[in-house]
């Protein structure tokens, strides 16, 4: 009995530590970014660039999950978080053409994320559709370490259809949530 309690405590401690680590990770990556700017180390810079793009992706996936679980309030919060990450994205290390494209994508995505931060769930899902296109186009430029699945539900918005990105192959539909959780299919794999 006592060993089980001990094991449970250990697991809790470990997971708590993990939680702390994740929290601490954000400001640290900022510092790293500063250092690499001073170093003018191209490799480090591109790594950092990826870190920023990854932050956007993470926020996007959290937002997607909130929509999957029909959580309007959570999605509002995460929409605003995503808007912040988007605004923090620094495009300066990309080529001129890529910069123009990325700025355009980010401006558009930020507007959608901000609207998600203040809308009811029906509106949130409408904005999420265009946002998903923006994020997909962003990833096409920035790349990612993650394996992603582009998924598609043909029934969304009176059979107009809607696509989204996911880290899991299994379908969890952000446009219908519990109403039609598994509607959709993988239409493309990224990486």
């Amino acid at each position, binding site marked *: 009995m006592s060993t089980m309690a001990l094991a449970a405590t250990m697991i809790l401690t470990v997971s708590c530590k993990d939680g702390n680590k994740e929290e601490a990770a954000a400001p640290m990556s900022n510092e790293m970014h500063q250092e690499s700017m001073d170093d003018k180390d191209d490799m480090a810079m591109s790594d950092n660039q990826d870190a920023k793009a990854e932050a956007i992706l993470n926020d996007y996936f959290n937002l997607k999950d909130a929509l999957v679980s029909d959580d309007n309030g959570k999605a509002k919060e995460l929409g605003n978080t995503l808007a912040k990450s988007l605004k923090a994205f620094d495009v300066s290390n990309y080529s001129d053409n890529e910069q123009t494209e990325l700025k*355009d994508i980010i401006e558009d995505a930020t507007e959608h994320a901000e609207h998600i931060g203040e809308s009811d769930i029906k509106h949130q899902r*409408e904005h999420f559709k*265009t946002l998903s296109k*923006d994020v997909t186009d962003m990833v096409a430029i920035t790349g990612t370490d993650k394996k992603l699945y582009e998924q598609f539900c043909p029934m969304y918005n009176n059979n107009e259809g809607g696509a989204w990105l996911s880290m899991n192959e299994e379908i969890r539909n952000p446009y219908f949530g519990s109403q039609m959780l598994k509607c959709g299919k993988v239409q493309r794999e990224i990486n």
Partner: protein
Amino acid sequence: MKVLKIIAWIALIAFVVIQLFPMDYNKSEAVPQTDFMLVNIVPATVEKSLQVSCYDCHSNNTKYPWYNKVQPVAWFLEDHIKEGKEELNFNEWANYSNRRKNSKLRSIIKQIENGEMPLDSYTLIHRDAIFSKEEKEAVLNYMKTLKDDLE
């Protein structure tokens, strides 16, 4: 009774004083080359609908009735116009990328369809800004063709 009189005087003085604050009018004589009407071939009826129902808050030129020059109405209006132009400025249409145009058109269509635009607080006074059924249909159809052309 005396208290009421004092309050009335204070209110009156405050009302007069706020009239003295400078107002930032949304006025522009020139229509830039990037205007929605100049870069698209817009049917006359649709153009009129947009001018009457949208351009006051979604362009650089507002047609102010006299009462909209009186504070605090003017402040309330200034906020709306600022926000409206941030979301969508028809005068700047050609400056939007295709991606942005697509998003703007999506919003225009959705909000007109749902009756969110023009705003109730606007049509309350501007009765002529309310879309008739035909006007609404014509505007929506035109916006949808523009959006389809982008895709």
